[in-house]
């Protein structure tokens, strides 16, 4: 269920609640404008949250049903029947804010329910006195609570989706709607691993044989063969869970005290090379406000990391799309943001993007080949250099990768 559907559903529930009040004859003519204002305000709030920037600011990508707010508004409508109790307003605001937290850890959602229950407790006396229903006094008290529970239960079902559950992958199975890639069992993992090792092993064997043959002819090993072997070994190490894949840099001089890379120049040449390869299908843009950015990082590692990210961007963006590279400086760090207009990632995929050998549904479905190791390696490469990486995505709208690297400081180490 996507954000739009959920928003509509929540609005529908709200309007239903208002109708309920009207039907029970609880609202007087003068209250209708107030009810309309409340209803309109709730709809406006939901619409606002659907606007990408705002939703992102609140950390919401898949909008859950805003049950909390719906419920309190039901209560609000009910209390109208007994006169407005202004004490409820702050609670309402608190409720809406906490409803946003429904996205996060379960604690937030408990708060939502607690606030709602509190509001209900306050509303009950007001309701009891004014609504005349052909039911006994006990039921008169229980009725609003029952409405609450029914709506909350319905909401919990709708709200329990992968985007809402926490990082627990087993919890993701309770999903309703979104397809959750299952965490592979340990045994499958081992079989896959053994199978996945065969290819890099074959590559290493080929280059090792070529080097041996060359040696018999008295030739030195070719650098590109060694580089390729290094890359494949790094891949195999990553597959078996070794933490530090070695950067393949056979010609790099040993132990330089302070590595430095001209980042803009590097990005320039990368952009040029990707333009040459993919310029026909994709618009590759490179912008920066800076004149020069030098980072304290190993150029080979950075290049490998950037290439990985760019390869992904190119791979998962269909023809006609864009890849934007943007470099800037802030707080003693350089920032490289690589954005694309490709298939993007769902929240679940983003959470697992840095796991080894994980590829999301859309990536697999897109048919592009890949081992799914890219981002895991990239993160390690960057962290080794003192950098960081983070993702932002709207499924179907694109992915933005932000890489942060420490600036090179001219004073000696």
């Amino acid at each position: 269920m996507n954000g739009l559907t959920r928003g509509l559903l929540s609005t529908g529930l709200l309007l239903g609640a208002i109708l309920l009040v009207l039907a029970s004859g609880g609202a007087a003519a003068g209250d209708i404008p107030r009810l309309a204002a409340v209803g309109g305000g709730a709809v406006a709030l939901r619409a606002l949250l659907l606007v990408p920037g705002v939703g992102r600011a609140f950390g919401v990508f898949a909008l859950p049903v805003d049950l909390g707010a719906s419920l309190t508004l039901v209560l609000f409508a009910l209390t109208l029947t007994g006169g407005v109790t202004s004490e409820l307003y702050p609670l309402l605001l608190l409720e809406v804010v906490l409803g946003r937290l429904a996205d996060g850890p379960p604690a937030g959602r408990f708060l939502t329910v607690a606030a709602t229950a509190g509001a209900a407790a306050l509303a009950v006396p007001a309701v009891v006195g004014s609504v005349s229903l052909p039911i006994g006094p006990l039921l008169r008290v229980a009725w609003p609570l029952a409405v609450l529970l029914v709506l909350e239960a319905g909401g919990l079902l709708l709200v329990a989706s992968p985007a809402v559950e926490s990082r627990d992958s087993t919890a993701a199975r309770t999903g309703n709607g979104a397809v959750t890639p299952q965490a592979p069992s340990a045994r499958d993992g081992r079989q896959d691993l053994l199978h996945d090792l065969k290819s890099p092993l074959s590559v290493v064997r080929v280059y090792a044989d070529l080097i041996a043959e060359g040696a018999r002819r008295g030739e030195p090993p070719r650098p590109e063969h060694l580089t390729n072997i290094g890359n494949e070994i790094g891949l195999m190490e990553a597959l078996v869970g070794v933490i530090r894949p070695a950067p393949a840099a056979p010609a790099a001089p040993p132990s330089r005290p302070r590595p430095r890379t001209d980042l803009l120049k590097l990005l320039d040449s990368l952009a040029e090379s990707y333009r040459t390869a993919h310029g026909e299908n994709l618009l590759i843009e490179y912008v920066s406000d800076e004149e020069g950015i030098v980072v304290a990082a190993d150029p080979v590692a950075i290049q490998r990391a950037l290439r990985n990210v760019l390869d992904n961007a190119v791979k998962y963006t269909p023809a006609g799309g864009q890849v934007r590279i943007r470099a800037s400086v802030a707080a003693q760090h350089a920032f490289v943001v690589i954005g694309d207009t490709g298939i993007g990632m769902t929240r679940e995929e983003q959470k697992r993007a840095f796991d080894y050998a994980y590829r999301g549904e859309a990536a697999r479905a897109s048919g592009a080949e890949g081992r799914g190791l890219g981002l895991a390696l990239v993160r390690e490469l960057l962290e080794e250099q003192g950098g960081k990486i983070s993702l932002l995505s709207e499924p179907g709208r694109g992915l933005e990768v932000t890489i942060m690297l420490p600036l090179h400081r001219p004073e000696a180490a």
Partner: protein
Amino acid sequence: MTDASIFIVDDDPSLIEAVAAVLSEEGYRVAGASDSRAGLLAVLADPPDLLVLDVNMPGLNGWEICDIVRRQTTTQDVPVLFLTGRGEVRDQITALQVGGTDHLRKPFRVEELRRKVRALTSGRRHKESR
């Protein structure tokens, strides 16, 4: 026979490059695809003198590609060399049943690769020399 054209389909681009590194040294013209579907279409459009197929690939696997290739009159005689990850007798039989010509178990030695490619490209050129 050198100057023969070889097409490799394998979902690992590094392996394609590695095999190409060996075979182009021998003088073969090598082309490849890591997308199995694109590889099949390329082979059908322009039949090579030898087709090297990985078996396990997402989308369309090596067995299916060989089966389809054997059904088209333009490619039914192209020799097919399978790169298999497992060495069970069953796989060897499946290779026969889909019309494969030979197979190489991964990881293989380059000398074995050269030997098999030489054997499979000797004698018959698939296309007339221009």
